[in-house]
C-alpha cells in the first residue's frame, strides 16, 4: 500500500508490542509533534494504529516555591530569628525579630500565619515566643520543597512526597498541578500484515514547482490536502484613507455635476479670507480667538491695488444706489495680515476676482475639498483642521430655488433626502440658509451645511456682474453621518489607530 511520507515514518517507528507515546514517535521520526498527532489520527482512521489516551497529572514548584527552596520557608526563618533573639526563654518584641529575620512585605504575613499553626511558638500582643522543641529539619513542607527542587512537571506518582503535604503546598500557592493528555499508539494486526507486504511512500506534493510542470511529473502525483477552512495569517494590504475615499467620492459627484476644482494657499491674507467676503473688520469672527493668525511671516507682500480700493469702498459705502456700508473702520494693513484660512471661501474669492485663472464668464461651477483651520475646542466632533467642501455656481439670475435644487441633488447622492432650508444670516450671503438633513440611520435632524447667494457688496468689488450662489460643509461631518464614527480623532491625525483604519469598511 501507499501512504504519505509522514505516515510511513510513524508506522515504522511504532511497534505492535508496546504503546508508544506521540512524543516518543516525534523524537524517533524527527517530525514536529503536531504533524505526528495528525498522522496518528489518520492512521487510526485507516485501521493501522490503535490509539489510547490517558491523563497524566504532573507537579512543579511555582516561582514562590522555588524562592523558598533557596531562602527557606518564611516561618522557619522567623523561628530561627526568634531563637537567635532568645525567644525560647522570654517573649521578645515582634518588630525586633522580624527585623532580624530579614523578612519583608507579604513574606511577613506568610511567616506569621504559619508560625503558630506549625507549632514554632506563639504570638501574643506584639510579642513572640519560640518553642525550643520545634525542629525545622523535621518540617514536612520544607522537606518536600527540597525533594521537588529539581523536578519539572514530574508525574505526581514519581515524586517522594506524601499527598497531604502536596495538598498543603498547593494551598499555599507553592506548587502547581497540571493535567496533560498522553496519546499512545500501537500497531494493529493489519498494520503488521501491511508492513510485511511492504508500505511505500506515496508521492504527495506540497508545492507546484516549475520542475513538476515542465517534466510532466504533475500527472502522477497526489497533492497533499490542506485544511482549507482554517484562517490564514492576517494580511494588511494598503488602503486609501477612509476620509480620502470620502473626499474622492465627493469630488466624483461634483465633477459629475459639472464643477471644476479650485486650489490655493492655506496661509492667506485676511483680505482674501474675510475682507473680500464683506466681513466687517470689527466682526467678532475676525478678532475672535478661533482664528489662527501667523506669528511668522505676518503680512502678505502684495494685494491687487484696484481690488483693495474697491473692497474698501464697499465696506465703507456699500454698493449700488441704495447701498450702505458698515459703520466701522477699514484698514489695509489689517487686511494684509496672514492667517491659516478659516474657510476655503478664500479660494472662491481668489477665483471670482479673476486673480487666479483670469476673468470668468458665466456660467461657471467651481468646488474644492480642502483643509481649513479653526482654533476651536478639540473634541470627538471638532478638529483644529478639517476638510471643507466648498462649491459655487455663477450664472445670470440665479434664484433661491436653483440653490435648493442643486443642494438637494448633491445630498441625494449621499443618501440624504428631505433637505430642510432654515433661513439664516451670513455676512456675505443674502438670502442665506442653514441646511438640515435627516440622519439615514438615527432619523435625527442634523445641520449639514451653510449656503446662500453671495451679496452684491462682495461680488461687485470682485468684478462679478451676475449671480453666484455658494455653499460649504465639513467633509468630516458627512463622513460621520455616513459611517457613524464617534470620535473623529481616531481617524484623522497622528493619534489615529492603525487597526481601526485597517478594519474600516471601504466606501464606493
Amino acid at each position, binding site marked *: 500500500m501507499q501512504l504519505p511520507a509522514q505516515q510511513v515514518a510513524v508506522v515504522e517507528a511504532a511497534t505492535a508490542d508496546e504503546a508508544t507515546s506521540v512524543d516518543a514517535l516525534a523524537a524517533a521520526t524527527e517530525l514536529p509533534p503536531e504533524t505526528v498527532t495528525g498522522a496518528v489520527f489518520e492512521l487510526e482512521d485507516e485501521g493501522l494504529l490503535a490509539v489510547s489516551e490517558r491523563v497524566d497529572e504532573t507537579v512543579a514548584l511555582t516561582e514562590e516555591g522555588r524562592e523558598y527552596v533557596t531562602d527557606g520557608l518564611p516561618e522557619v526563618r522567623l523561628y530561627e530569628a526568634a531563637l537567635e533573639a532568645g525567644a525560647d526563654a522570654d517573649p521578645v518584641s515582634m518588630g525586633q525579630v522580624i527585623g532580624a529575620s530579614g523578612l519583608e512585605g507579604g513574606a511577613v504575613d506568610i511567616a506569621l500565619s504559619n508560625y503558630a499553626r506549625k507549632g514554632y511558638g506563639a504570638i501574643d500582643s506584639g510579642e513572640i515566643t519560640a518553642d525550643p522543641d520545634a525542629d525545622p529539619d523535621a518540617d514536612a513542607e520544607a522537606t518536600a520543597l527540597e525533594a521537588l527542587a529539581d523536578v519539572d512537571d514530574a508525574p505526581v506518582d514519581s515524586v517522594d512526597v506524601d499527598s497531604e503535604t502536596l495538598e498543603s503546598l498547593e494551598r499555599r500557592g507553592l506548587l502547581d498541578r497540571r493535567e496533560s493528555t498522553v496519546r499512545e499508539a500501537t500497531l494493529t494486526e493489519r498494520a503488521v500484515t501491511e508492513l510485511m507486504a511492504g508500505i511505500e511512500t506515496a508521492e504527495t506534493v506540497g508545492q507546484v514547482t516549475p520542475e513538476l510542470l515542465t517534466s510532466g511529473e504533475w500527472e502522477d502525483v497526489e497533492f497533499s490536502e490542506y485544511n482549507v477552512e482554517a484562517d490564514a495569517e492576517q494580511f494588511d494590504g494598503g488602503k486609501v484613507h477612509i476620509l480620502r475615499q470620502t473626499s474622492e467620492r465627493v469630488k466624483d459627484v461634483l465633477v459629475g455635476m459639472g464643477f471644476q476644482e479650485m486650489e490655493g494657499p492655506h*496661509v492667506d491674507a485676511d483680505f482674501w479670507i474675510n475682507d473680500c467676503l464683506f466681513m466687517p473688520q470689527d466682526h467678532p469672527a475676525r478678532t475672535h480667538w478661533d482664528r489662527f493668525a501667523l506669528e511668522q511671516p505676518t503680512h502678505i507682500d502684495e494685494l491687487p491695488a484696484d481690488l483693495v480700493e474697491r473692497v474698501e469702498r464697499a465696506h465703507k459705502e456699500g454698493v449700488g444706489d441704495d447701498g450702505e456700508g458698515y459703520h466701522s473702520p477699514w484698514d489695509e494693513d489689517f487686511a494684509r495680515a496672514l492667517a491659516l484660512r478659516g474657510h476655503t471661501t478664500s479660494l472662491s474669492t481668489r477665483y471670482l476676482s479673476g486673480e487666479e485663472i483670469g476673468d470668468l464668464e458665466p456660467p461657471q461651477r467651481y468646488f474644492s475639498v480642502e483643509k481649513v483651520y479653526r482654533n476651536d475646542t478639540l473634541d470627538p466632533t471638532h478638529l483644529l483642521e478639517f476638510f471643507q467642501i466648498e462649491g459655487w455656481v455663477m450664472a445670470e439670475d440665479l*434664484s433661491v430655488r436653483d440653490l435648493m435644487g442643486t443642494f438637494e441633488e448633491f445630498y441625494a447622492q449621499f443618501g440624504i433626502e428631505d433637505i430642510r432650508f432654515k433661513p439664516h*444670516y451670513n455676512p456675505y450671503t443674502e*438670502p442665506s440658509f442653514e441646511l438640515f438633513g435627516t440622519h439615514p440611520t438615527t432619523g435625527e435632524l442634523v445641520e449639514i451645511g451653510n449656503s446662500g447667494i453671495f451679496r452684491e457688496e462682495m461680488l461687485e468689488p470682485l468684478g462679478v456682474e451676475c449671480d453666484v450662489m455658494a455653499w460649504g460643509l465639513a467633509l468630516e461631518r458627512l463622513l460621520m453621518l455616513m459611517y457613524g464614527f464617534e470620535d473623529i480623532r481616531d481617524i484623522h491625525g497622528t493619534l489615529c489607530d492603525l487597526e481601526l483604519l485597517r478594519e474600516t469598511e471601504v466606501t464606493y
Partner: protein
Amino acid sequence: MPTVDIDPDELRDLTGHDEKSDDELIDDLFGLGLEFEGRTEEGAFELEFAPDRLDRLSVEGVARSMRYQYGDARGTHVPSPNSPEWTIEVDDSVPDERPYVTGAVIRDVDLDEESLESLIQLQEKLHATMGRKRAKGAIGIHDLTMLKGTAATEGNPTIQYVGVEPDADRFVPLDSDAEMTPADVLEEHQTGQTYADLVSEYERYPAIYDSLGLFSFPPVINGRRTEVSTDSRDLFVEMTGTDQWTIDKMLNIVCYALSARGATIEEVTVEYPDSESANADSNGSRTQSGGRELVRPDLSMKTKTVAHGRIETILGIGLDPDEVIDLAERSGLEATKEENDDGDLVYEVTIPPYRVDVLHPLDVIDDLGRAYGFNDLEPRYPDIGTVGGRHERSRLERSVREQLVGLGFEDMLNFHMISEGENYDRLDITPGDDAYGAGEPATIKEPYSEDFTMLRTWVTPSLLMVLERNTHRSYPQNLAEIGFAAEVDERENTGVAEGRRVGAVLAHHEAGYEDAKARLQALARNFDVDLETPPTDHPTFISGRTAAVVIDGEEVGVIGEVHPKVLVEHDLEVPVSAFEFDLEALR
C-alpha cells in the same frame, strides 16, 4: 452663536396669544430663525439668534416679530416721542478715542422683576454684539429722579459728557460701597478690571456729570446713585461710543423695547462743542451726525428702492405687485409701487428705525422671502451647462496615492499643524539646516496648545508619530502620506512656500534601505521620471545609508534608513526605512 433667554409667559403676554403652548411657540420661533436650544433654570427658553436681527435681543423685540408673523401687526410702527427737555452737553475735554454720545429719556415705565431683567439682558446682549464688547458702543441706564441737571440755559436740565483725569473725582460705582476714582475702579472693581483695557490707554477717561457730580464712567460702569430698580418710574438712557450711527441704532432698539412696555419716549438734545474732534467721524462718512446739535433718538425711517424684477429672479417665482406689498407689510416694512426712470416696476420700501441689518435692497428681498416662506418654494435644478473637472495637482495626487496603495502602503492623513519638537528636535534636525525638511517654520501666533505651534515642514515626522502610537499593532507597518507641508520663503507673496510631499515609512523586522528604494523606483518608473540616489548626509538617517532623491536632475527629497537615535526617541523597536520627496517632481 449667541443666545437670548425669553420667558414664554411674557411672550404670550406681549403677543396677546395666551392660547399658544410652549411647543407651538418653539415652532413659531424656529420659523423666525430663532432656534430653541434648551431652558434656563427658571424655565425660560434659551434661543439661538442670528446676529443680524439685533432688534430681537429681548422678549419685546421677539414678540414684535411674532406679531408680524401671526398677522396681528402689519406695516411699520414708530413711537412718537415727546419734545426734549434734557440736554447732554459734550465737553471739549472728551477723549478723542470715544467722542460720541447719544441718549433718551423714558417716562412712566412700569418695571417689575421680569421686565427689569429683560432690560438688563437686552443691554448686555447689545454690548456683546453691536457694541463689540462695549468698545464700539456702551449703554448706561439711570433712574432719572436721582439726576439733578445743571440749569445751564433757559432752565433746561443739562448733564455733561466730559473727559477727566483718571484720579480726579470720586464716585460710588455699582456693586460697591466705597467711593472710588475711575482709576481705582479699573484697579479694584471687578467690572472695572474686566473692561480696563478699553480705556486704560486713554489720557483722559470718559465720564458723565450732573450738578451733583460724576454719575457714570462709560464704557466701564455706572454710579450707584442712579441705579435703576423696580421702583424707578422715569429713566435716563445714555450711550457713548466710537461711532454715532452705532450708538443711535442701539438706542433705537432700547427705546422700542421700553415703548412696547407702555413707556413714553422723550427726546434729548445732544450738543457737541464747536471743535474738530466731534466732526471728525472715524468712519469718514456721515459727518452730518457729528454736527453741532442733535435730537435723539433718531426714529426716522430709511428707504430702499427694490426692483420687482430682482425680487422675482431671487425668489424664482412670479409675483403680483399687491402680493409684494402684502409680504412687505407682513415683514414690518411698508412698500409703495413706483416706476423708475427706465420704466421698470420698483418699490420704495420704508424700513423702521430699529432695523440695523438692512444695508442693501437684497436684505429687503430676504425679508419678503421669509414672509412668503422659503420652504414653500419648489426646488429646481438650474438649467446651466458647465463641464466638470479635477485640478491637475489633485489628479496627480490621486494617481500617486493609488500607486502607493498598490505598493502595499496604508494611506495616512495627518494634521498639518505640529510642534517644533516633533518636526525638528525629535528627528535630530534644526530649522535652517541644509537637510531636507529643515526649512524655517511658518509659526502660529496664539496656538491651541504647544502641540500645534507651526505648520509642518515635511511629513516624515507625522508618519513617525503614527508608528510611535501604534507599536502595539501588528507589523509590518508600511505607511505613506501625500500631504501638505510649508516653510517660510521670502520669494513667495504670502512669505510661505506651500506644497505636497510624498512621504513613506516601512517599519518591520527586516526593513532596510533596499525596500524603500525598490518602492521609490517603482514610483519613478510609473511616472516615467529619471531617478538617481547619490549618497548624502541627513541627521535623521544612518550615515552611509542615506541618499538624496534626485528626479530628472533635481534634488527633491531624501531616502534612507532612519537613525537608531530617532527610532529610540520614538520608542520604536523595529528598523524603519523611509523616503520623502516633492509631489511636483512626478509631474
